């Protein structure tokens, strides 16, 4: 039970952070596979089953743009932050920093 509980709480904690991380990482263009690797190298593991639906959702919300393009003889879907996404990311990062400061003060 304690491990289930910590898994659940960790999931809740990560959920919002993943969106911010993905948006921030897509200030530079990536396709799904390289984005996942880049995030993992920076210490944020995210499984494919979560990442790709998240990308679609962010795109449908207008925060990302995407295009199919050939690279290494294979068609790949490249994602990038949209102008609206850039504005939202800035606001989210401000919120994130304020939250961090508040949490630092609390704990």
């Amino acid at each position, binding site marked *: 039970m304690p491990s289930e509980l910590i898994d659940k709480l960790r999931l809740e904690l990560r959920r919002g952070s993943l969106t911010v991380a993905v948006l921030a990482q897509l200030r530079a263009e990536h396709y799904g596979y390289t984005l996942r690797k880049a995030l993992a190298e920076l210490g944020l593991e995210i499984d494919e089953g979560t990442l790709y639906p998240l990308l679609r959702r962010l795109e449908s919300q207008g925060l990302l743009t995407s295009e199919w393009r050939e690279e290494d003889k294979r068609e790949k*879907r490249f994602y990038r932050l949209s102008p609206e996404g850039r504005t939202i990311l800035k606001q989210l990062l401000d919120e994130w920093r304020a939250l961090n400061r508040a949490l630092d003060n609390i704990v």
Partner: protein
Amino acid sequence: MSTLVDHYLLQLKTFLPAKQRDDIAAELRESISSAVEERERELGRLLTDDEVNGLLRGFGHPMVVAGRYLPMQQLIGPDVFPLYWYVMQAVLIVIAVVGGLMVGIALLTAPRAMQAALQVAVTFWWFALQVAACVTLSFAALDYCNARFSFLDKFDARDVSAGVWSVRGAPLSAIPRADTVFEIATTVILLFWWVEWLVFPSAWLGVVLRLSPAIEAFFYPVVALCIVELMRLGVDLVRPYRTVPRVALRLVLNLAWLTVFVLAYRTEGLVEIAEIVRSENPERVLWMAQVSMSIALFGCASVTAILAATDVVRLVRR
């Protein structure tokens, strides 16, 4: 390798909306291929089926992955769910208790006890399923209205002392939610029985009984009273406190019920025999049913009179 991936994507596509199906599958295929190629480069050989399977397991079950692409949908959201679950449990418990009593009576009195008990149990099982469906649909409608009109967000603490139904003045007292749910359950059982959506099996008595045409005069008044009663109880469920107008309404309804019970008690021959199955003495069974009905009506009238008196006391003591 390709066969496993193809099968995986084929399964996944069946769960996806048609418009996005090919696009999503193409993107996932590319991602899987990249992962496979990278692993093959690291190992310097082709991956076995087991290894490809391991990679695909990392992606997740096709149905789960596809589900994440769909918009978040829920029949009953977290705002309404606790009340829904409470009402569902309480209503089903009341039906189970009433059904259990009926099964017990059938076991003790019916000539073919097991058969009769099974018949009653099946009847109540179907009834419980119908009620569960009604409760679920009602709360789904409530949740939909809340999502559309945000009426739970428009909550105003002042409503408790000066809100809908209260005209002016503070609430008289809190209404225990268990009482409200119990009343809802019994009213629903009464209404369903009255309109013959719930038929209490009586063939095990040796005769099939039904309400006689003498009851027709009461049909619409009872249906109307049940509906108004359920609406009143619905308000009590969401706003569990007594206010003067609501107590006054309950008093009026109780007096109306009392009138119905008294008139029905004074009416002869409310129950009649629809069919004789195998009884040697059907007249005696009918007489017993009529006496039971009279006792039940007397009991209901007494309880309603007490409730009406309670309402009067509440209003006077205000």
